[in-house]
């Protein structure tokens, strides 16, 4: 095994922050059975990212997040309109909207991306290996790669969101009518969740690309849901999953000499599989007698 350098540390941190940033809103998508809306958003933000990039000329600009959130919102609205007002089935509406937005994004990238360093490979593969050597920013007197700062900021944003909106999310995910009675507007909650998803997707885009972003959205939450039975445990499990996938993914990428983002996803999937097998073999804590009596 090669030496563990500071670059490895930054790679692992970026992967961990990205996985955490996606996993925190992602678990709510899983709980609300909206994982595929997450997929639709991760593809639909592309035109917004390209426009934001062309407008600002940099991949770390807040314009990317604004453009992406706008496009994510447009996609979700489009799917809703096609489904409820247009009479198209929801799955077909999702398929039509996200492919159209994605096609628009790729076309714009080809048409205008020639003079800038935004290329289609980044969409499918992510570009963390090159981005880690990119521009550096100074945070608290320390020089850290821009991508680590971006993903760390996204993770912070996601953590603040799920912390502040916890009761709102809980009520609207499990009992929307009750949430409405409590004046915790479930529609607003849904919109907020989707906006935060669009924002973290922008950060994940550079790390793992559009499609594998979906894995980071779903895998930590899905794994945590296999083991956790209380909300704090759920978020602890998500953090552990994100950290382990980052470390193991880094190892795997080193051993197999493959794409870093893909390695992180494969490591996360392996953790998911192990957890599922362990949960199946009842290696998790057994319910207490009174819980069993209640069930």
């Amino acid at each position, binding site marked *: 095994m090669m030496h563990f350098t500071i670059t490895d540390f930054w790679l692992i941190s970026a992967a961990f922050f990205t996985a955490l940033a996606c996993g925190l809103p992602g678990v709510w998508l*899983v709980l609300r*059975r909206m994982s595929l809306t997450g997929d639709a958003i991760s593809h639909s933000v592309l035109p917004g990212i390209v426009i934001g990039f062309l407008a600002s000329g940099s991949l770390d600009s807040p314009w990317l997040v604004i453009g992406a959130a706008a496009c994510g919102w447009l996609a979700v609205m489009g799917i809703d309109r096609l489904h409820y007002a247009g009479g198209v089935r929801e*799955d077909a509406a999702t398929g*039509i909207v996200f492919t159209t937005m994605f*096609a628009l994004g790729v076309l714009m990238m080809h048409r205008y991306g020639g003079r800038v360093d935004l290329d289609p490979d980044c969409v499918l593969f992510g570009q963390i290996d090159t981005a880690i050597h990119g521009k550096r920013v100074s945070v608290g007197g320390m020089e850290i790669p821009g991508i680590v700062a971006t993903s760390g900021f996204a993770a912070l944003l996601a953590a603040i969101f799920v912390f502040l909106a916890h009761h709102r999310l809980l009520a609207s995910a499990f009992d929307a009518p009750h949430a409405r009675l409590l004046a915790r507007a479930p529609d607003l909650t849904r919109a907020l969740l989707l906006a935060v998803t669009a924002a973290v997707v922008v950060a994940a885009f550079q790390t793992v690309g559009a499609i594998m972003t979906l*894995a980071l959205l779903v895998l930590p939450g899905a794994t945590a849901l*296999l083991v956790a039975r209380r909300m704090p445990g759920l978020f602890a499990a998500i953090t552990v999953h994100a950290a382990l996938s980052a470390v193991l993914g880094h190892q795997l990428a080193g051993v*197999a000499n493959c794409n870093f983002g893909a390695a992180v996803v494969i490591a996360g999937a392996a953790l998911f599989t192990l957890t*599922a097998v362990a949960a199946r073999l009842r290696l998790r804590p057994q319910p207490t007698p009174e819980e069993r009596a209640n069930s």
Partner: protein
Amino acid sequence: MSALATAITAALMIGLLCGFFGTFVVVRRMALTGDMISHAVLPGVVAGLVWSGTRNPWVVSACAVAAGVAGSLAMRAILRHTRLKPDAALAIVLSVFFASGVALVSMFQPSGAMAFLYGQIAALDTRDLAFLTGVTAVTLALAPWMFRSLTLVSFDPAFARILGLPVRAIDLAFHAALTIAIVVAMQAVGVVLVTAMLVTPAAAARFCTPSLGRGCLLACGLGAGGALAGVAVSSLRSGLPTGPLIALCLAVFFLLAAACGPDHGWLPAWARRIKIRRRIESEDFLKSLWHRDAGHAEKPMTPSTRPMLQRLAADGMIASANEPAELTARGRDAASGLVRAHRLWEAYLADVADFAPDHVHEEAERAEHWIDQDRMREIEARLGKPARDPHGSPIPPCPSEDTPTNERSP
């Protein structure tokens, strides 16, 4: 064969193929399963490319189908052994299989992998084209045979089983054939936009016809047309990618079909709603003229508009389009038919459906526009030719038989 000719032939074939399979994908609500398959086949495609070394389409397709089956099995395992819902299982399989494919691509860098990821319709060689032609020809030759059993299995598997159809085998064959179609189409439009090829033409066809057979033909036509249009636009200028242009052309077709589709397109549906509203407003106006002539001063006049008066005058319901309107004999018959429908329905609700007499008026206000002559006769016979409605007003007799107003389908 020039690159453009290759592209045109391939676009035509792939459009037909995807139109056919897409029809069933849409009616079976499998749009996102199709998306999952297109991503899940990637490791198989890459493995096939690495293994065969020469981009042999048979090897690649076989490996891709194997990977697609593995994806479906993985999804089934997740659903069976965990409490995760289908959307999460689908998302996990889709993204993890794709990640494995990306890892394989980055490890072995096989030539030709980029064609599957991004779609390069002009880069297809004669062997790919022969394979594509073979797949399309076999599908379209078998289509008339498969159509009936596929329809049955898609809409009512239980009934299909009772008929003795091998439902599971048909499902498996459909999945395998769909996977091959997806692998073939991926080379034209890329991994993400295959879903557009499958779903968009078929969903557009649903706006144009309620029949599955005609919808299928139309989807094939739209698919081929969209693919050709995409190729045409991309050939206008170098550097324009074909795949996204095909997807965007299909999206334009979809919007056109959704807007103008005769079956339940938005504009025809809107026109129908307007027509119905106009009819109801005119009928309410005729009725209020009737009440005015009968001296029921307590009933307010329904407001009229100039176009409404002109339409009624043209139909011969009122004497002229000028205020104050005067009913013709024909208009009086039509209006009394409406009053008759109203009062009969009130009597029916009060006597048979046991409504309180003060609750029937609002219901009858709606029903009077929808009850036709036959239904009125039926109600009248059932109530034993009542003379008065629950409020004591007389029910007008049946107007002369040739009055057209209430002869309409509900």
